[in-house]
C-alpha cells in the first residue's frame, strides 16, 4: 500500500521551518513522521500528516512550494537488525531506496519506516511476498 507524503521547499533562513509547522499547527494538521533533507542552500521537509490534501492547500495559501508523492510505510520488528531484513528484501529485487526515515514512536512492538523506492510496484510485491506489512493510508493518517 502506498501512502501520501508531502514535501515542502524551505529556504535556508532562520524561522523558515517554524513558519511551516506554525501554518500546519494552526490548521489542526497532525504530523506523524518527518525528515529534513538539506544542502547548504536549501532544504526539503518531508512529512506524513493526517490530512495531506488539506496540508498542501494551507501551505500553498501561505506561498509555500509543496509536492505530494507516494511512499511506502513498512512495519518492521523493533529489534536489532529489524531494518536490515526489509532492506535486503528490496535489494534482492534490485530496488533502490531514494531516501527513508522513521515514524515517531512505535506501534505494538513494531517500528514504522517511510521508504521512497525507485520502483514502488516491485518494492510492494517483494515486501508482501516476504510477509512484511505496509501501512494502509487509513491507518497512517490516524497515527
Amino acid at each position, binding site marked *: 500500500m502506498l501512502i501520501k507524503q508531502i*514535501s515542502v521547499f524551505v529556504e535556508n533562513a532562520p524561522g523558515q521551518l517554524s513558519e511551516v509547522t506554525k501554518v500546519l499547527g494552526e490548521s489542526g494538521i497532525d504530523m506523524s513522521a518527518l525528515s529534513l533533507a538539506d544542502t547548504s*542552500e536549501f532544504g*526539503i521537509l518531508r512529512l506524513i500528516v493526517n490530512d495531506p490534501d488539506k496540508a498542501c492547500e494551507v501551505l500553498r495559501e501561505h506561498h*509555500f512550494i509543496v509536492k505530494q*508523492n507516494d511512499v511506502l510505510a513498512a512495519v518492521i520488528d523493533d529489534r536489532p537488525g529489524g531494518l536490515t531484513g526489509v532492506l535486503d528484501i528490496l535489494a534482492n529485487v534490485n530496488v533502490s531506496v531514494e531516501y527513508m526515515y522513521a515514524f515517531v514512536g512505535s506501534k505494538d512492538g513494531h517500528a514504522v519506516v517511510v521508504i521512497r523506492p525507485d520502483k514502488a510496484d516491485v518494492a510492494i510485491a517483494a515486501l508482501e511476498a516476504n510477509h512484511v506489512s505496509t501501512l494502509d493510508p487509513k491507518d497512517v493518517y490516524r497515527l
Partner: protein
Amino acid sequence: MIGMAMYQPQIETMPQDQLRALQSERLVKQVKHVWDNVPYYRKKMEDKGVSPDDIKGIEDLHKLPFVTKDDLRECYPYGLMAKPLSECVRIHSTSGTTGKRVVAYYTQHDVDLWEDCCARAIMAAGGTKDDVVHVAYGYGLFTGGAGLHGGSHKVGSLTLPMSSGNTDRQLQFMEDLGSTILCCTPSYAAYLAESIHERGLQDKIHLKAGIFGAEAWSEDMRRDIENKLGIKAYDIYGLTELSGPGVSYECTEQAGMHICEDHFIAEIIDPDTGEVLPDGTKGELVFTSITKEAFPLLRYRTKDICVLNREPCACGRTHVRMAKPMGRSDDMLIIRGVNVFPSQIEEVLLKVSGGDITPNYQIIVGRENNTDTLDINVEMSEALFSDDIRSVERIEKNIVAQLRSMLGIGAKVHLVNPKTIARSEGKAVRIIDKRKI
C-alpha cells in the same frame, strides 16, 4: 522577385542611394519644422551651437543633440508638440511603469503613415486582402491594437478587433471566422497556443502566420509558438514615442527586422560616449522620425542595444535590418568586464525550467576583494520542485552551467521562496547593484 507581394514595393525596394537622398531631403525639412515650432528643441540645438543651416543632409545628423525619455518626461504633456492641438486627431501613451507616462500626438497624416508601416509588416508576413487578421493586442492607449488594426484595414484584410484577454472568445472567433493571421504579444501567443492544444482545437484553427511584438522573446520561444500553432511567427518592433509597432518588422526570411527608412533614420551609438558606430557594431539604437508632424523626435535614444545589417535581403527589400534588441542599455550590467543583460539570464531560466513561464528572479551584483560577484535569486516553483534533493540541486547546477556558457562568467544561484522577490508597482525589482566604485 522572390517571396510575397509588398504593400509599397517602390519604396520598400528603393535602391539605397535613392533612399539616402530621400532621407536627407526629409531630414532637412524636419529639422526646420522642429526649429520653427518646438522651443524646447530650438533651445537644445542652440545649446549645442547647431542651427538648421548646419543640417544639409544625413551626413550632418550627428551634429544634432540627442533626445531621451527624460526630455519627454520633462516636456509632459505638451512640450514637444510641433503642431497645434487643433491639428491633432489622436494620442497614444506608454504604460508609465518606469516613471511618468509619455504621451505621443498624431495628426491624421501621422496616423496614415503609421498604418502604412503596419500594412507593410502584415504583407511582409504574407498577408493579403483575403486574410482574416485577428488583432489580439490591447486596444486603447497602447499602440499595439490601433497600429495593426489600421494596417490590416490598409491591406484590405478582414480585421477582427479582438483586443487582449477573454481567451474563450478569442478561440471561438478564431475557429468560427477562420482567422489566418494572429497579431498579439508573444507571451499571449504562447498562451493561446497552449490553450488550443489543451482543448484539442488544432484541426479547427487555420492560422498561417503571427505578428508578435511589444515584448522581448527568444528564438526558442519563436520555434515553440511556430510548432504549436503550425504557423510562421514574425517579429515586429516599435515605440510609442516614434508611432507604435511597424517602425521595423520581419519579412519571410526571418533574418532581422526591416526598418521603414523612408520614415525613420536609424543610428547605432556607443551608449557611453554618444559616438556613432559603424553598421554591424553592437550599440544603442537611435531613431530620427523624418515624416512625423505632430510629435517628431530627433535622435531619440531608445536604450535598446542592437546591431544593424545593410546586407541585401533575399526578400528584395532594401531597407536596413535591425537584429532583435539584445537588451537595454539602462539594464546592461558590466560584471568582471563582461556585458550582461537581464534578458540573457531570463533566457537561461526559461530554458532550464522547461516551461513557458520564466521563474521570477533577481540579480544581485556585489563586490568582494575587488572582484565583482553575481548572485541570482530564483523563486522556486512547483514545476522546478521535487521531493528529491538531487533533482533540485541538478536544476541549480544546470542554471549555473548554462549561465557560464552564455556569459562566460560564474554566478551563484539561490533558490528562494515564491513571492519573496521585492516588487515595485507590480513589477519585480530585477537588479540590485550593491557595488560602490
